[in-house]
């Protein structure tokens, strides 16, 4: 497999939040977790999904006869997508005059991905940047180790944003080709973590511990979510866990609702509408706490 193919949801160039320097972030389709605050919900399924953007739709009905599943219908002047019927075949995408439909990802080979990434090689050299894999869970992609290997061959620095909620074998297979691991530590309570995200805390922490033992460069990140983990006692215990694992580099990500529109496009309810968007100031106390405890805490975007 020298040119593996991936479901890529998007590629962001000139990114500055996902690892050192200016980076190109490649987002992959598919994640084993189901966090309610996920801002890229279209990346959760392991196959491309159909997005329908209401504000681009003029309910012309052009798409209706093109759907082999009869999943599309006009009701009271609005287009309705029957998600139970839709198989995300994408036949509605090219026929919509307003461009309301899209599939969440397209297939790209590692060669194609790297061709885009290499366009900014000068910027990486100047800023210490490079390639970041994100998602979704990039390490769930078959052949990701090949992509990372090829990136290293091309002298890129590599960063992987992972849940670490997967078999250590996978982490081990990419370890030689990853310069920076950005790992989510979403909660310190086993039950709450499992209930809200589907992640197994023991698996996550054991993976982090093993990576640390191997000398990997690990940064832990916590999305600070009101009601879920934003109280200082929870954060203190998350920080304790980090310290116990030997990690000192930490990023706090204040909760935002930027992904909300995507839920509407997927026809999924957004359940966190009632929560307040947090500013960097809102998490500054938590950051100070982490620093007092000996962590190097940064507030990220």
């Amino acid at each position, binding site marked *: 497999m020298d040119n593996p193919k991936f479901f890529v949801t998007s590629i*962001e*160039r*000139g*990114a*500055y939040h996902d690892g050192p*320097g*200016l980076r190109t972030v490649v987002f992959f389709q598919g994640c084993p977790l189901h966090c309610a605050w996920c801002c890229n919900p279209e990346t959760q399924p392991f196959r491309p999904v159909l997005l329908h953007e209401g504000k681009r739709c003029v309910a012309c009905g*052009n798409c209706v006869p093109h759907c082999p599943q009869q999943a599309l219908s006009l009701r009271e002047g609005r287009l309705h997508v029957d998600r139970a019927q839709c198989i995300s075949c994408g036949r509605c995408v090219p*026929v*919509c*005059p*307003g*461009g309301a439909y899209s599939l969440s990802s397209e297939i790209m080979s590692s060669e194609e991905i790297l061709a885009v990434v290499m*366009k*900014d090689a*000068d*910027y990486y050299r*100047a*800023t210490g940047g490079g390639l970041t894999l994100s998602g979704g869970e990039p390490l769930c992609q078959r052949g990701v180790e090949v992509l990372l290997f090829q990136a290293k061959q091309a002298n890129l620095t590599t960063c992987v944003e992972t849940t670490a909620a997967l078999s250590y074998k996978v982490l081990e297979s990419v370890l030689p080709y990853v310069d920076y691991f950005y790992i989510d530590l979403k909660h310190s309570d086993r039950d709450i973590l499992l209930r809200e995200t589907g992640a197994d805390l023991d698996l996550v922490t054991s993976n982090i511990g093993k990576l640390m033992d191997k000398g990997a460069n690990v940064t832990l990140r916590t999305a600070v979510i009101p009601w879920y983990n934003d109280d200082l006692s929870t954060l203190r215990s998350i920080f304790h866990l980090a310290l116990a694992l030997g990690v000192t580099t930490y990023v706090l990500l204040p909760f935002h609702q930027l992904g909300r529109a995507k839920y509407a496009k997927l026809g999924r309810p957004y359940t966190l509408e009632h929560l307040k968007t947090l500013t960097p100031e809102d998490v500054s106390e938590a950051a100070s706490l982490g620093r007092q405890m000996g962590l190097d805490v940064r507030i990220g*975007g």
Partner: protein
Amino acid sequence: MPKFSVETPQNVAVSIKIPPEMSPMDQLELMERYTATHRAYEGKSREEREIACLRILYPALFRSIEPDDLFAGRLDFLPIGFGCVTSVGGVGHYCVFNKLTAFKDLLPSDEHERVDALYDYWLEHDLKTKYCRQALKDDVVGMFIDVEYPLIVTARLSGMMLNYHMLMDLGISGIRERIHEQQEKLGDNDFYRASLASLELFSSCCDHLADKVRSDMEGATPKRREELLRMESALLRIRNDRPETFVEALQLFWLYALLAGVINYGRMDDVLGPFLARDLRTGHLTESEAFSLLQSLWTMIENRRTTVNGRIIVGGRGRLDPESADIFTRIAMDVAHSCRYVEPQFTLRFDRETPDDIIDAALDAIGSGATYPTLYNDDVHIPAVMRAMRVDEKTAEQYVPFGCGEFVIQGQSVGTPNICINLLKILQIALNDGIDPMDGIDKSDGVSLLPAEEIDSFDVLFSQYKRLLDHYFDLSIESQLLSYDVMNQEVSFLFTSILMDDCVERGKAVLDGGIRYLGGTVETYGNINVSDSLAAIKKVVFEDQRVTLSALRDAVNRDFDGDMLLRRHLWEAPKYGNDNDEADTMANEVFEFVANGIRDRGINAGMTYFLIVISNNQLNTEWGRRTAASYDGRRKGQFMNPANNPQGGANTSGPTAMLNSLTRFDAGLHGGSLQNIKFTPDFFNGHRDLVKKMFRVYFDRGGCQLMVTIVNRGELEKAVKNPDTYRDLLVRVSGFSAVFVNLETDIQEELMSRVLYG
């Protein structure tokens, strides 16, 4: 005779002018005296007429000295008078007819006849009107700014940046002596006599202002009295002698610039820096006094309200005393940071040797939302100017951008942009049998064109477009040369000529063979809409074969009515600004054809240079209003792309991708190209080191220029809703900065459509 309205507004004016201090009756009388003098000198030489008319205007037009002014010189402009640009007053002996008509309302109705008499006289004598009668061509060549036409032309002498070194080194008396020497050597002529008379007039204006200063001393506070005494002594010195102090140098420069009617100033750090450095060194001035003096200069320039001019340039290679100049630069940077003015257009030239603290100060000022300085990369521009203008390195080092970004060589070249060309309109005409789909009028000017039905390949289409462009390029060079002829027949631009190489040496005015490098520029519009249109046609018609060319043409001409799916396919075709090779290669192909087409015509006509400038004020939006829907998916009447930037919203691949696209063009083929970029404060200020390195890469890759607006996400939208709370929100439109809420609605929309990074 071509049809045109003399009342057409002659330039882009966003900033509201300060009304004249003189009463309307006094203004009327002055305009009558001016007109009578102009009439009386009929049949005399243009030089005699010019100086006689200038004596009517000066010192009469000087306003009072404002309480905060630290040097003297504020001028009024009337609808009739003398000038060299359209942004203040008019060109040559001018009448700005729409302003004269508006002026009538300020007078009692029984005086209206007097205005009408002036109006009628100037219909026959206004320089620009004379030019228009000869230059315009029905349906094909229109006047500035009549957006029905594919080509608009004017007569003006924009962007003159004078040789102030000569002024500082010689002083008025020294220049007088030099003229005398040349008179002896080459023989006397009207130009020399009138030049000497102009210098006399300069001295009388100094005396007049010194009188004003003295009268202001009565009742002044001790501090103000001291300032006024300093002002008086400067005026009395520079009326004849070389300046010795910074204040004297500043006063001399400013007063001369006012009388010359120039509105771009140039390398002030190079000219004034040595005086400033010496005064600071000797303790003659403190840093804070220097700051106040520069702030006063900033205010004077702002108060002239030229919208798209007022260039002050600092930094860069080729300065006589870089160390002293950088002292000026550092203080100027602080002033630009603290004054939230839209003018002066403060410009930093830099190269790899520029001290880091100056680059950092520039980024700080930009980061504060000042939109200044605009950034010009000498490492690219100097070799590029050498090729574009065919000059040596030492000369190229003196390049300066003026107005919206056109280059001249300070003190040595004329480069006025008297032509604007709408490349997109011409593409539409080329695909519609010569008819402009916007108004159904034939604008082919006799060029034979195949109907779309008979165009069977992309190459045939492109070459048809090029043929029509070639014809419009011919019209461009003719119109530019004619503007020089007409201006030269009427006036000598005496004050300007005296300080432009080699007018005094040759005994000739700038346009009479005096100027060392006769250049000129053409502003191009819609360049990216054209290349994106061509890329889209290539893909949709000739590669994907979704539709025939004639069906596409019809759908576009209907503004996509009933065919929005086709519009979507056009919009989704490769677009410039995304580091997409296909789109960027097309953009470069269009650029090279247009740039070479104009440049070659200038060389063949004997000019030193005639270059395109990919600049913009807000004409991309104004011309867009009268430009039909285009093949890139742009709707009828919508703004066109700004300067060298993508169409708003077309660049979706991040800042590095856009910067890479921007570097695709050979700077050695144009005379200035503007690049706008918009960042959030979070990115620009919160990650300054990254931004600085990103810019460095861009400039190393051949990026020639950059203008940066810092704005929060959603802020422009909020400003539209609550303009009163956003009175200090500055944006870079392109060739000028503006208070966002003062812009017209569709110009605001164009700015909001530009992608915000960060």
